[in-house]
């Protein structure tokens, strides 16, 4: 009978979707973002998805390892350890300073001029360390000058410089520029630290 037949088609569809839609409407955002496998999907299709997914994972792992090896090779080629010099930027708290940009000079030459996106500044605030510059310097004495611009206390435009005279030896040289808060003066503080 047609009625029965059609009704059973509808029922099958409803029954199949019943479970499927549960989590899509759950009141928590994390779950709402996740669609569910429908209970009616075939085991064959699931197996095919799984085979493909496993192959993709293998491939991505190989690509990651390749990227690691290429990253290391690239650095060794471009910045041999005896001349390698890198300058890093980090932030400690950052209550009194919102970072907009950093200009970096080494031996009076501009080597980096970096404008920060909100995402990058945020990543620094959370504890990330940015490699602002990597280059080659001969052994001997050098001077670094970094100029920071941003929003100082009371959202006023703020521009401050920090400098360092450093000795480049035969190994790689790492210098960290840290923006930190000085509670006593309610002012930002710009520190330069040499890493061995």
């Amino acid at each position, binding site marked *: 009978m047609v009625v029965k037949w059609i009704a059973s088609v509808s029922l099958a569809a409803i029954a199949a979707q019943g479970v499927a839609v549960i989590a899509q409407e759950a009141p928590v955002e994390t779950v709402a973002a996740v669609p569910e496998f429908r209970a009616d999907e075939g085991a064959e299709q699931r197996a095919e*998805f799984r085979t493909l997914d496993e192959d993709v994972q293998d491939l991505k792992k190989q690509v990651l390892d390749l990227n690691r*090896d290429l*990253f*290391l090779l690239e650095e060794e080629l471009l910045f041999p350890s005896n001349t390698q010099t890198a300058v890093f930027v980090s932030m400690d708290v950052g209550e009194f300073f919102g970072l907009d940009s950093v200009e970096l000079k080494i031996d009076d030459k501009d080597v980096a001029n970096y404008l920060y996106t909100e995402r990058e500044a945020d990543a620094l605030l959370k504890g*990330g360390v940015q490699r602002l510059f990597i280059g080659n310097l001969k052994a001997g004495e050098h001077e670094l000058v970094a100029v920071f611009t941003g929003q100082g206390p009371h959202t006023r435009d703020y521009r401050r410089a920090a400098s360092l005279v450093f000795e480049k030896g035969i190994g790689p040289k790492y210098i960290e520029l840290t923006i930190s808060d000085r509670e006593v003066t309610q002012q930002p503080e710009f520190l330069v630290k040499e890493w061995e």
Partner: protein
Amino acid sequence: MAARLPIVAAVAFALPAVDAVAARGDDDGIVVQDLAYGEVLFEFFQEDYFAALTRLLAAQQRGELEHHGAEAELMLGGLYLSYGEHRLAGEIFERVLAQSVDPALNDRAWYFLAKIWHQRGYLPEAEAALGRIIGELPEELEPERQMLHAQVLMEQGRFADALTALEAWRRPSDAWVGYAKYNIGVSLVRLGQVEAGARVLDEVGQLDPENPDLGALRDKANVALGYAWLQASRPVEAKPSLQRVRLNGPFSNKALLGVGWSDAEGADYRAALAPWLALRERNLLDSAVQESLLAVPYAYAQLGADKQAADHYVDAIEAFSSEIVRLTSSIESIEQGELITELLGEREDAGTEASGWYWRLERIPDSVESRYLYELLATNRFQEGLKNYRDLKQVNRNLSRWAESLGAFDDILDTRQRAYEQRLPTIDASLSSVDLDAMAARRVELESRLQAIERSEDVVALGTAKEQELWGMLEAMEPHLAGASAEQQEKHRFLRGLLLWDLRRDYKARLWAEHKALGDLDRQLREAQRRHHQVSSSRDDWPEKFTALTARIEGLRPRVLGLQESAQLALNRQQEFLQDIAVEELKAQRDRLNTYMVQARFALASIYDRAGARVDPQPQASLSGSGE
């Protein structure tokens, strides 16, 4: 978004040492002790998991994570998870968490892994991961965990287990009660316990009508309940719940269809027509609306209104035919590969967007194909497949860039080799012009002279040139003093005594200064030796280094090319998979319409047969004008 960062943040940062990062407002926030770890964090906080992983793997290889070894390993697990490498993540969690003394960390890590495994359809793995959770998760995650557990069981067809799990969940918070009960109700119906299931679904279907957030859940429960009764051939019970469904909600079409069937089952075709006629005005893409095209003439025919029935059957056949043509054309365009490009649009080439687990298609483009595939596109298997496709696209772009860079690496290496060759003669000349051995011998000689002076307290030896000249003159006069006057002798004695006094007075300071000068000389000599050695070993090492670097580039080239080929193949397979499931879905829709069409034609033919068989045709009954 609240759910954006949880995996790595919750997993990696649950470690006590890194925990503070999440709450950076604290005065004693994390101290990055290895710059490389800070770099990884910088990429991670920007949600660039690929870059973070590459940096982390390189740092591990170079041993740059001396102070953050444990966090880094867990971070690696979290990053793998975020990048869709869930098997590797599982292996790391297995290894690292076994040694962890923090059960909360263990539980969270396994929960997130279970969540991904469920999403990707690895149901037994998801169940096993959930089984490794020892205690209770934090308040915001615990209900999700319970629901996930039930879902994983239900999707494996284990409704009885799902029911047991949900019933054992003693303290579901208010917001989750409805969802848990809905799942229980569906499980019971599926187990054939319609009465029990219906009671639970009925409760959900009548949940707080004042709360609009629960509207969709109520509707869904009412539809499920109504159809459960219809399936059990109890149309009278079906109707009230179906009538509770909101008329403008997403479940209204199915509810209208069901209300019609409950009336039709009770042979009240006139009543059935009302919801069905309302339904046939709605969007034909909906399967309930399609069915109404068949249901309306069926009701007319049952009421004896054959002409109206025939007209509606003809309309239905026409509508089904056009829809079948459109579906066929959509199937063709999908088979030509247009769907994926359309879905990803310009974003297909957007390299800056985050990859991996968090990404999903947020806006489905309004095309003919996507309208038919709306439900399919929202399913996990399609979304996860699309994610893999997109990751493979990124992998392809990454590999193309490296393929180009390898050429540049060759050039850099050649340039360095040429510079070396050009500088070699100068280097050799300057190396050979410096006789470090002779310098060292001279230094030894100086030291022994100083020792001799010290031993004999030779104060004159440390005098100034003038003093030494004067001393020499006085010494030269000595043999001739016998013939000199007493006054001259006295003068000589006085001057000698005066000079000796000065020399003795300054001797200690001069001796100290000489020792210091010798020390300085030592240092300078050592520095000269060190630099000489450095230049000399750089000169000697370079050919070997050059060979090694050349070999590394040559070794990497086939890896890049091989992976490019594999990535392209995987991309094609992934595309085919997505196209296949889309085409399968459209074909199922087309098959359903074909079946409807056959039904409509068959019914139409029956009406014509009936009409033709009438010897003395009577005026046709008409619902609208018959006054029945």
